[in-house]
């Protein structure tokens, strides 16, 4: 309805439903699943909706038949009478008022019910989809383009919205209408029914021809639209370069060519769509004329009780018959498209979620004088791993310290391609470990293993002496702070963004964390200070400022282990120097893994690991490595290694 069109215009998909049909493996199964998924929770609603549709259709059909009665029973017999009695007519009209009222009410009822059914099931789809998505492993996001994932939400769910709230009830309505009109028509006159059906056949044939032709041009139009959009995107993104090179005329020339191509194919595509309306309308008129003439002849002869009133009713049926048939054939395409969308929605829902077989939990702890650790509900600042041993039904508590050990770890994103080989790392609490190496050497990969974004193929990683596979993922990650090169913030206030690290943090804690990261000065200069609203990838802040916020976010979480993956790469050297004290404070007492290409960040590490093609080829302190005169030394002095 109106709202649907509104959205179409908004989305720029005015020509939905026309074009090549997507191929589906098992449309029947998807359809069934979609129906049971969306309508399953609304069984009673749906029964009422169907009843409502049937009642309203029947009332309409009954209304059309009333024309026959009106003419044959209530008008013609009275013609020429001196003292016509309109009492029967008034009774009939009263009866019709009741019938029509029933029709209006049931139509209102089913439309209203349908709102709750469709919006409710869409709500369910959206929530389910999101919840499933949040539970997917990182691997899924790394192997699927974000654009594709987003398109499930924006395009596919949107198509479903249209299908569930509009197409389905309309299809139901149309089918019931077609059936009941057909029955009434047959009851009125079989020959005229045949005439009508024949013309419907002609209409369908014509539609098929035109659609076939137009879909060719639509494919062409889509292709050329894509090409032009691609060109526009590329050139507008490079518009400043175009200006600098005075390349405007050349840019215009190519644009014009693509623009003209699109115009031609768009014109053709639209032309074929536009002819469909008039052709169907006039074929409908032809059908109407044929029925009128044949019917008139039949009425004169009075064959099979065919009266003038029957003709009047039949003509209305004729009009109302072709409309739902056209609707059904048009909406068939929409349904196929929606099924393709539903397929993608269900595929995302069916993805294997991240499994967590860990059972060691992180709990608040208290330590008595003798050093025994007990569990407590209070927030003590002291944490412990609660480790339940099934074998002897005992529970032990290990203090959370931040001791991380890699023991001969192999890892590959796919089983057949190992990217990390025999990695041994031993980080005792408070140690600072740095990773150095070229892009693709495996630096970030190692940090992805500590928080179990990915699982290792071979070897062991131990955290405070516990195999990390035994630790509940949520608890493991809660004990790790991470700052990434691509700082992702969320739409909301600055305060909310810092609080992301600790949801129940007080304002004082937020400010303290911001001060530690040296973000406080710039935040205070913002018009609304800590309440300034920023957007997720907001342009209002510089990359450097956003990195400072990300550092503050990690600081407020106060984790025993920190992972800094190029955390300060966008901060210029002078500012970095300013926050260095804060960073040192942040790292103090914590096990820290650092990836950086700036030496100032790495130099004072307790151990520097030089990675190359997934192997640790050198390790040691800055001084030790320099003395070795190996790879690190060459990197440091800038001399190329011979050979």
């Amino acid at each position: 309805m109106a709202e649907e069109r509104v959205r179409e215009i908004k989305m720029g998909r005015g020509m939905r439903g026309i074009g090549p049909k997507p191929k589906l493996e098992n449309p029947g199964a998807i359809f069934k699943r979609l129906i049971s998924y969306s309508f399953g929770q609304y069984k009673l609603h749906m029964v009422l909706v169907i009843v409502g549709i049937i009642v309203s259709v029947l009332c309409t059909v009954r209304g059309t038949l009333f024309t026959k009665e009106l003419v044959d029973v209530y008008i013609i017999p009275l013609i020429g009478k001196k003292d016509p009695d309109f009492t029967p007519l008034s009774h009939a009209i009263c009866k019709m008022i009741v019938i029509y009222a029933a029709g209006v009410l049931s139509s209102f009822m089913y439309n209203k019910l349908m709102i709750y059914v469709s919006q409710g099931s869409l709500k369910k789809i959206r929530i389910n989809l999101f919840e499933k998505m949040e539970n997917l492993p990182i691997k899924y996001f790394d192997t699927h383009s974000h654009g594709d994932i987003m398109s499930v939400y924006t395009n596919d769910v949107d198509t479903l919205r249209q299908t569930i709230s509009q197409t389905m009830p309309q299809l139901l309505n149309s089918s019931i209408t077609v059936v009941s009109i057909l029955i009434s028509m047959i009851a009125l006159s079989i020959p005229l029914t045949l005439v009508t059906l024949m013309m419907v056949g002609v209409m369908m044939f014509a539609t098929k021809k035109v659609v076939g032709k137009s879909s060719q041009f639509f494919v062409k139009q889509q292709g050329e639209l894509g090409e032009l959009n691609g060109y526009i995107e590329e050139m507008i993104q490079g518009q400043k370069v175009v200006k600098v090179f005075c390349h405007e005329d050349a840019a215009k020339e190519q644009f014009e060519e693509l623009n003209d191509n699109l115009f031609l194919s768009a014109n053709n595509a639209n032309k074929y769509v536009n002819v469909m309306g008039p052709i169907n309308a006039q074929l409908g008129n032809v059908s109407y004329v044929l029925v009128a003439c044949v019917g008139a002849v039949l009425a004169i002869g009075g064959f099979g009780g065919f009266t003038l009133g029957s003709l009047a009713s039949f003509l209305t049926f004729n009009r109302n018959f072709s409309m739902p048939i056209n609707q059904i054939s048009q909406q068939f395409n929409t349904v196929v498209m929606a099924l393709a969308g539903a397929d993608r929605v269900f595929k995302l829902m069916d993805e294997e979620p991240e499994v967590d077989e860990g059972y060691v939990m992180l709990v608040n702890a208290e330590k008595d004088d003798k050093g025994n650790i007990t569990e407590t509900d209070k927030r003590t600042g002291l944490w412990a791993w609660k480790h339940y041993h099934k074998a002897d039904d005992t529970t032990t508590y290990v203090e959370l310290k931040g001791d991380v050990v890699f023991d001969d770890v192999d890892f590959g994103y796919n089983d057949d391609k190992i990217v990390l080989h025999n990695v041994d790392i031993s980080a005792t609490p408070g140690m600072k470990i740095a990773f150095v190496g070229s892009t693709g050497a495996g630096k970030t990969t190692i940090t992805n293993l500590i928080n179990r974004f990915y699982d290792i193929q071979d070897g062991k990683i131990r955290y405070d002496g516990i195999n990390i596979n035994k630790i509940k993922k949520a608890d493991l990650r809660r004990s790790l702070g991470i700052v990434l090169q691509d700082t992702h913030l969320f739409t909301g206030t600055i305060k909310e963004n810092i609080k992301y690290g600790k949801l129940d943090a007080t304002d004082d804690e937020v400010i303290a964390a911001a001060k530690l990261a040296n973000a406080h000065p710039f935040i205070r200069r913002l018009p609304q200070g800590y309440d300034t609203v920023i957007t997720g990838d907001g342009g209002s802040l510089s990359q450097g400022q956003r990195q400072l916020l990300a550092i503050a976010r990690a600081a407020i979480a106060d984790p025993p282990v920190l992972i800094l993956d190029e955390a300060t790469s966008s901060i210029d050297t002078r500012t970095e120097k300013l926050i260095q004290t804060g960073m040192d404070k942040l790292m103090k007492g914590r096990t820290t893994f650092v990836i950086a290409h700036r030496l100032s960040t790495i130099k004072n590490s307790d151990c520097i690991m030089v990675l190359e093609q997934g192997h640790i080829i050198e390790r040691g302190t800055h001084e030790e490595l320099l003395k070795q005169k190996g790879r690190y030394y060459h990197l440091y002095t800038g001399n190329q290694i011979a050979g």
Partner: protein
Amino acid sequence: MVKKLLSHLGEYKKFALITPACMILEVIAETITPRLMGMLVDNGVDKGNVSYIIRVGLLMLLCALFGLVAGLTGGFTAAKASTGFARNLRKGMYDNIQTFSFSNIDRFSTAGLVTRLTTDVTNVQNAFQMIIRMSFRAPFSLIFAMTAAFLVSARIARIYLIAVIILAAIIVTIMLSAMKSFRQVFKKYDELNATVQENVNAIRVVKAYVREDYEKSRMVKACENIYNLFAGAESKVVLNAPSMMTAVYTCILLISWVGAHMIVSNELTTGELMTLLTYCMNILMNLMMLSMIFVMVSISMASAERIVEVLDESADIADPDAPVTKVKDGSIEFDDVDFSYYKESEAPVLKDITLKINSGETIGIIGGTGSGKSSLVNLICRLYDVMQGSVKVGGINVKQYDLETLRNEVAVVLQKNVLFSGSIYDNLRWGNPDATDEECKRACILACADEFIEKMPDKYDTHIERGGTNLSGGQKQRLCIARALLKNPKILILDDSTSAVDTATDAKIRHAFYKEIPDTTKIIISQRVSSVQDADRIIVMDDGRINGIGTHEELLNNNDIYRDVYESQTSERDFDATIQSST
């Protein structure tokens, strides 16, 4: 606004005018048919006149044929007018964007411009097509049917008129209030999608902080909210159909009652009654249609507004009336220059800049992010205009130069640089369309790009993907430098253009400049001290002002900032860059 848009109809104006005319003809044909049918009943059926039936039948078929021809013509011209209109709008916007200065471009975001050129134009195209077809068809159909009804029986037609007025009032009320709600809903809906997008992009953060449940609960709340808004908005629209049905049914029953009386008292014929019943549907359906058109058009207005914004934007920087087309030499002079990007912003980006650079000099610029380095050099080739003071190149104010001349002589390699899809040669020749292969190669050798190009399978014919995605950062930067060198400029500006190039290669490029293009004024902006320390003079920028100028040694002695930066970088190199070049 509408006028501005329509001025872009251009050569498609005639099609835009023919369409409504065809639509009106089609409507006439359609209005006649029911009347003919009435006559057929009265004169043919009632009197048993078969030859009359056949004659009228043929007449009706003729009407259908006439309607078909009009409808087809209208469909064709509508397609041509609307797609042609879209073509002209795109062209108009694109051509205007080409005249934009940097500050114009900054005002619209890149994504914003792309949307306007694509989605918004499509919206306007569809709306326009509907306007010229439907918005003429529906009201005319309504008026014709109404008139025809009046001709048949004024008494009954009056019932229609009253029904139309009441129904119109109801529908308009419903639609107006629904539209407001829908605007709200769709805004929220877009926000919802933005939240999802954020979650997809930041999934590592979400998982690292174990905030899955937090995000889920936020999402559930947002979905509940959308559900309520949607249900509320649709509850309004849902009243449309029953109102329409009530109006139709009321009319039918009233006509039946009144009509029956009239027929019996010989004021109306059966055929006329049937005609009137058909018109009843016509009139009320078209009213419904009209309300839909109204909604759709008003929604597409937002797109139209965005398009007009681009069309109306006039370039901030244009050629002067009597432009100077020759740049004498590469000397540059800043005279008490103030600059800010937005006129209304109180804190200027550059303040009190007075500076003289001699032709052929090599100048290094260093300073923290946001200190105004890029802004300073962008004024030289007049990418932006100063707020106060003047900038002179070759002794003449930049505002007096022909822009093309100035920008060809002052080559700037932008910080955010872009390569375009096409071969390496194609990209290089942006600098100089007439450059020979040898000249291209020479520029590449100077920029140290030759070494990696020669290693590529197709060498200089290698295809570069959009945005240069098949090249590394350092390779892209070197190609951009070569492209600028091909201009053979008097002034060459490198705005942090070697940040991804390793130090050794960086030094090699600078050395080549020194040897091969000694007469060109060179300005090098860098974060690295090593890139600027051998320049003739180094400018230290801080907070929009020149903090110090001098040679490396001088600045080490008398400039705190420079010393700070130097010390923080001593004997340091960007690790990744070094590593990349050695692997």
